Structures are given as C-alpha cells and as structure tokens.
C-alpha cells in the first residue's frame, strides 16, 4: 500500500485500494481493439536457463490482450534459438523471435554499418531498438511495452499496469515508466538510491533548477527497466547502447514530449531480479561500469541543453555528492530500522565511495570527449538513409521464424 502523493512534474499512478486484475485485463482487451499492444522482451539465452523465464512464459500464456510479442534473443546459437522457440510455444499470442546472433540479422546490422548508421554495441539497448524496428515494420501495434526477462516475481498484473496508461485512449500519455520497491529482506537498488538521486540533487544544488534534472528527479525509480510507450515515440527516440540506456531514454523523452504526457506507474509490490556485483575496483564491469555510463549520460544531456561544466564544478560536484549521499544513507538506515530490514551500513558507505569514484571517472571521460558514444539513431533517420530497411528487417525475422 502506498500514499497518493504526486511526485515532481510527471504523473504518478499509484496502486491504491484493491484493484482487480480481471477488471484491468478486461479493460485492456477493450482498449487493444483500437490500440493494439506489442510486448518487447530483450533476452539472453542464459535467462531461459534461469528461474525467471518459466514463470514469465506461464503468466504470458494467460494474457489475452496482447497483439504480438517480439523477443530479441542474444548470445544464442542456432540450436538455442530452436529451443527458445519451443520454450515460447505455450503462449497463445503470436511470438516472433529476433535471432540477434543469426546470419540474417547480422546482415541487417552490416547493411546499417555500411550506410554510416551505428547500431551500437551488443546489449539491451540495441536489442530493444531492433525490436522496436520490427514492431514498426509490421505496423500492427500502436503501443509497445517492454520489460526484462530476469524478473523472478513476475505477474500478469505487472504487465497490465504497465500497459494501461498508454493503451487507454482517454489518458493521452505517450510514455510510462514502471516503479516498484526493490526490497526483500534488505534494500536493493543501490545505484538509484545512492547514486542517481543524490547526484541529480547535487547537480540541482550546483547548477540551479534545470528542467531535465527536475524531470529525472520526478521518477521514483528512474533506472527501472520496465516501460511502455506509443509507437510514434519508438520511431523518433534515439537510444544509448551502453548502461546509460534508461537515463538516456528518459532524456530523449524529455526532449521530444511535454512532461504532461509522461507518467510513472506502480507495477509491483515486490520485485526481484538478478543482482549486479559492485566491482568497486574495476570500472569496466558490474555496477561501477553502469555508474560511469549513467553519469556520463547525465552530463552529456545537461551539456547538450546548455549547462557549462568546468573543472571546478566537477570538483565541487564530488564533494556535494558525498554530502548528499551520506544524508541519503542515513535516511535509508532509519527506513530500514523501522521496517526491520537488514541494513549493512558499511557496505552502503563503501558503495557511496565507489560511486564518487565513478563520478570522477565519468567527469574525466566527459572532459576528454564531450560527445562520447553516439546514440543509436532513431528509426526515422534509419529509414531516410535506407528506405527499404523495415522490409529487410521484417524479411529477416520472418525467415528466421519460419
């Protein structure tokens, strides 16, 4: 149960009272007649060997309002691909699997590269982007919902609540981010709690009120991997291919649409998925890599909006961040105590130290190269360069799924 407080400049849709899944799904079935819904699932083959995917397939096989499911399968051989097709067969909705490591999709990427379009590095960003392209190529859906494939506590309600704000034509939202508490016997979600929120508030302290920072701070869980959007947005949004995916995508939404058309929805009371290691000593993996990418993405978005970053500002930022993070840490400790949760203050403090190092690394990377990795171009840009790209993509996926 939650309160009904509206956070920031976007709409927050809480879970209030006892909403029934039957009502939600029957309404969604009605909406899907005029706004067909596609579900995009970026997945690694290893996730089909884990505990989450059987539950997700079991739940999805009961869903009736989905128009199509597009699963982008990465790091899989031909045999793995066949096994995944078999695995997904209980689902009644039409399932198309994009074989990301396959020969045909490889040729699609090759076509993009030789035409000067960089689809970025292998990862969730590129997988999601390609799936949007396929949904656009088919032209059968108006709404796209996306969630990860490692959710152990997955339920149909999560999907229903995620789709509802965009599928309902009376609400007029174009982008909806999911949120949930990352609590088991302890508090998870360290990057959001101890990096993103304190960093955004430190930047607000240093550079004054800024639209994007206010927008970012309005999200209860800005790094949540679950969201839904209109297909129009999928056509015009560019996507980062690194760990800055979530923050970079929000920056694109902020750039293209009014915050009035953006909302966040409470999708789950409990949420559990696989955890990343902190990897405090190696900035090339784990949460450290993620943190550096996120910080760079925030700096670049602000710089592109006219904020001037100097060496002095970066020095102050680290100090301000440390103060903000320490204050935040104390708040969470109190929160954990009253709820009887395990709270390892030493580990949390170590995480803050690691994140401050990540900010310093990201600052240095930004000073050395303010442009950074280019975002994956939006589909309008791609189809302008290669007019037949949608048909090519559709042919590749359909041939793989024959």
């Amino acid at each position, binding site marked *: 149960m939650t309160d009904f407080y509206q956070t920031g400049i976007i709409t927050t849709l809480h879970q209030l009272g006892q909403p029934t899944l039957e009502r939600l799904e029957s309404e969604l079935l009605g909406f899907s007649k005029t706004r067909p819904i596609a579900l995009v699932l970026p997945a690694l083959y290893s996730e089909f060997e884990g505990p989450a995917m059987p539950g997700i397939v079991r739940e999805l096989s009961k869903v009736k309002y989905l128009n199509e499911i597009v699963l982008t399968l990465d790091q899989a051989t031909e045999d793995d691909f066949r096994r995944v097709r078999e695995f997904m067969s209980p689902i009644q909705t039409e399932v198309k699997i994009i074989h990301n490591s396959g020969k045909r999709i490889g040729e699609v990427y090759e076509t993009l590269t030789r*035409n000067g379009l960089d689809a970025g590095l292998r990862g969730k960003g590129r997988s999601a982007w390609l799936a949007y392209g396929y949904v656009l190529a088919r032209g059968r859906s108006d709404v796209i919902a996306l969630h990860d494939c490692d959710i152990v506590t997955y339920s149909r309600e999560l999907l229903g609540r995620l789709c509802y704000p965009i599928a309902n034509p009376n609400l007029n939202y174009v982008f909806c981010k999911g949120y949930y508490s990352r609590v088991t016997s302890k508090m998870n979600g360290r990057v959001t709690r101890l990096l993103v929120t304190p960093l955004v508030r430190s930047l607000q302290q240093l550079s004054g009120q800024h639209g994007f920072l206010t927008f970012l701070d309005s999200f209860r869980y800005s790094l949540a991997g679950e969201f839904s959007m209109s297909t129009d947005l999928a056509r015009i949004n560019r996507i980062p291919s690194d760990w800055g995916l979530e923050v970079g995508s929000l920056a694109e939404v902020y750039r293209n649409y009014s915050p009035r058309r953006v909302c966040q929805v409470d999708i789950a009371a409990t949420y559990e998925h696989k955890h990343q290691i902190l990897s405090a000593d190696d900035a090339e993996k784990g949460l450290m890599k993620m943190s550096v990418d996120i910080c760079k993405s925030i700096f670049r978005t602000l710089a592109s909006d006219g904020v001037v970053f100097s060496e002095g500002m970066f020095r102050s930022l680290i100090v301000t961040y440390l103060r903000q993070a320490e204050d935040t840490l104390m708040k969470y400790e109190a929160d954990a105590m009253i709820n009887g949760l395990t709270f390892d203050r030493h580990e949390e403090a170590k995480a803050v130290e690691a994140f401050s190092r990540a900010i310093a690394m990201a600052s240095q990377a930004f000073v050395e190269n303010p442009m950074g990795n280019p975002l994956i171009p939006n589909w309008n840009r791609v189809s302008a360069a290669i007019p037949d790209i949608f048909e090519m993509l559709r042919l590749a996926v359909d041939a793989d799924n024959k």
Partner: protein
Amino acid sequence: MMDFIDLILEPLQEMLLRFKAFLPNLLAMLVIVGIGLLLAKLLRAILLKFLAAVGFDSWSDRMGFTTLMRKGDLWVKPSVVVGAVAFWMLVIVTLMVGLSALRVAAIDSLVGEFFSYLPRVFSAAMILLIGYVVSGFVSRAVLIAAANAGFHYAKLLGEVIRALLMLMILAMVMEQLQIATSIVLAAFSITFGGVVVALAIAFGVGGIGAARRIIEREIAEEKPQEKQDDIEHI
C-alpha cells in the same frame, strides 16, 4: 593364331594412336581451364575491390536491389553476388573455350551456340536491371502523386503499377532469352490485356455518372443562350 592376336592388338594400337593425337588437346584444355580459373578468381577479387571503392553495396541498399535479394532469401552483400556471378560467368566461358580446344565436332557446335547465346543473356540482364530501377521509380512517383491527390489506396496503386511493370519486364526478359517465347507472349498478352480490360470496365461502369455529368456540362456550355423575348409586355 597370329591373325587372332593382331585382331585384338590392332584396335588397341589404333586407340593408343588416337589418344596420343588427342592428348595435346586435352592438355591444352586443362591449361586453359586452370589459367581461366585463376584469372576468374583474380578478376573477382579486383571487381570486389572496385565495387567496395565505388560504394556499390550502399547504392544497392538505397535502390532496393538488396531488398530484392533478401526476398529471394539471399543474405550476403550485393557486391559478393555480383562477384560470384562474374566469377561463374568467367568459369563457364573458360570451360567452353577449353572444350573447344579438344577439337571435337559435337562440342565445337555446342560452344558456338553458347557464344551466340551470350549477347542475349547480357541484354536480358540489362533489361531486368534497368526495368527494375524504372519500375521502382515509376511506382514511387505514382505513390507520391496519388498520396498528394488524397487518393486512399495510393500504396496499393503504387504496388499494382510496380507489379504490372515487372510483369511486362519479365515477359521481355523471357522473350529475349527465347524461353517458350510463344507461351510467354500469349500468357503476357492474356494477363496484361485482362488487367487492362478489367480496369477499363471497372472504371467505365463506375464512372458512368461522372462521365454523364461532364458531357452534360460540356453540352450546357456549348448550347447558345436562348433568345430573350423582345416583346415588352405592358
């Protein structure tokens, strides 16, 4: 007894002599084919370098040739396909030249026929290539014009125009290759004529009212104004 042995040995000796006479020709053929294969590989490598330098693959992507290949489930670079076609053409030509070196009458006539057929293959390929580009251009022009005119089925119209043009081009290609010319001509005439007659009937029947209104308006415009009654009534 000696006669009997001669009877056996004579044909063998004759065969040996013929083989001796034939051996240089066979060697010549093998050398020609061997050099031809090497040359074909070299030319393919040069062609691939050249096509990469002029950006042939990107051009094919934009012109729709790559999509055409993908429709045929061919998932390699367009330049690789061109390279392979050139390579196998050269191999076939080399093989034909090599076979002619054998100096066997039956093979010589086959080789002659092959070389006289080559220009037809070339012109058919050119018709197909240019026809595909032109059909794409015309189809896109129709699509844009129809969409700008607010026509609801602009995309369908563009696709129909493209299909009809491709039908015509394929008939021309088959005619050029002299493959079942009479059947192709008859099939094309019936199909194309049928489509045109069907469209004419559909448009004619559907447009009766519009045509009547236009004719009536034309007649009304041409008809002189009736003379005003010049009697003034008091």
